[in-house]
């Protein structure tokens, strides 16, 4: 499987594979062995398993990532309010220390599983897998996974989601994609949140944020919205509906994997 399929190798990095065999003995009596295994293979393997779960149950899974406080839970609350009559939703919450976010979702009558990550800085595929078994996937159209608020680590860990949505709140500044390329390169949709604050801030330029995103070779759409005022929410809701439809059409062809750079996740 993944250890031997060479899926990490492209013609850009294949030179890392030494040409001269797997095992070499040295004069000092030591053995040297060529391994070439991705350090995140165990996670990636579990993530593929999670994705199979989702696909079997026709669930569309979205991973929400951002810095702390960018508005992930507020966006989910507003999304639930808008779509509750229409779609069956559930949420996995990667809140660090508290049940606060999960309680905010449950207050809306939606199932929310809390992953207590303790001091962890990101969710991984194993954490999500154990949460999955507390959910009835059959009834779901869409599962939102609110990752730990952190612009660094979460992007490295595939959870089995079908799409990554990265939030950038206007008070953080429009240059964040240039400062956190790993995170923003992974985004399938960039949401610029708290648009109601832009007037006060004065210098946040969504165009500039979009330009930094393109410099990461990322073609993801950029939407500007405010969960507080409701501005721009419609386009986000349309995106969810459209992606659910696309996902269902892709299912029979088993083409739901994500491809990021040289790594297939």
């Amino acid at each position, binding site marked *: 499987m993944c250890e031997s399929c060479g899926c990490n190798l492209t013609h850009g990095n294949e030179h890392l594979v030494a040409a001269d065999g797997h095992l070499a003995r040295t004069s000092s009596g*030591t053995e040297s062995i060529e391994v070439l295994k991705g350090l995140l293979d165990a996670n990636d393997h579990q993530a593929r398993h999670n994705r199979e779960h989702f696909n079997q149950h026709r669930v569309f899974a979205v991973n929400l990532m951002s810095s702390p406080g960018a508005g992930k839970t507020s966006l989910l609350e507003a999304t639930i309010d808008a779509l509750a009559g229409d779609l069956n939703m559930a949420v996995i919450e990667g809140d660090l220390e508290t049940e606060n976010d999960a309680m905010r979702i449950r207050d809306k009558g939606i199932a929310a599983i809390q992953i207590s990550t303790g001091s962890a800085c990101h969710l991984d595929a194993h954490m999500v897998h154990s949460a999955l078994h507390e959910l009835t996937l059959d009834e779901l159209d869409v599962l939102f996974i609110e990752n730990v608020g952190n612009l660094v680590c979460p992007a490295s860990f595939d959870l089995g989601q079908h799409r990554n949505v990265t939030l950038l709140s206007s008070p953080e500044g429009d240059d964040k994609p240039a400062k956190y390329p790993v995170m923003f390169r992974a985004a399938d949709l960039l949401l610029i949140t708290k648009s109601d604050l832009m007037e006060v801030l004065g210098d946040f330029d969504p165009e500039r944020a979009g330009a930094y995103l393109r410099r990461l070779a990322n073609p993801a759409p950029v939407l500007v919205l405010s969960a507080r005022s409701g501005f721009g929410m419609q386009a986000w809701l349309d995106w969810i509906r459209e992606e659910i439809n696309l996902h269902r059409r892709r299912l029979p062809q088993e083409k739901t994997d994500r491809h990021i750079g040289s790594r297939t996740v």
Partner: protein
Amino acid sequence: MKYWQPMHELAICQALIAQVAAVARSEHASSVTDVYVSVGPLSGVECPLVRSAFPFAAAGTVAGEATLHLRQTPVRVSCEDCGAETEVAANRLICGRCSNWRTQLISGDELLLQRVVMRSGRPRRNNDV
């Protein structure tokens, strides 16, 4: 969130040690002397933090005395327009020849255990557990 990062690199070092230990076991090695890892700037992993987390993850394992060798891979993209392959900065993945932003990453996001050097376990068989 800089102060959270060591946790993240520790988790990665633990995954690394698990893989190293599996290799050592299958080769019947008594100890691992060197571990070679390739890290791309777009892997999301910081080399200095991996270096500082490694001894904590390795302590008490077959790789407890091992030296970690980290190798940074370059960020390279291939242009979808002009076909050029160029080396670029991690936050500027545009074609180095024609400035087109539609490129494919061909190297720079690796996080690979490349090579393990170890001592054979046979001469010390009596002491082994």
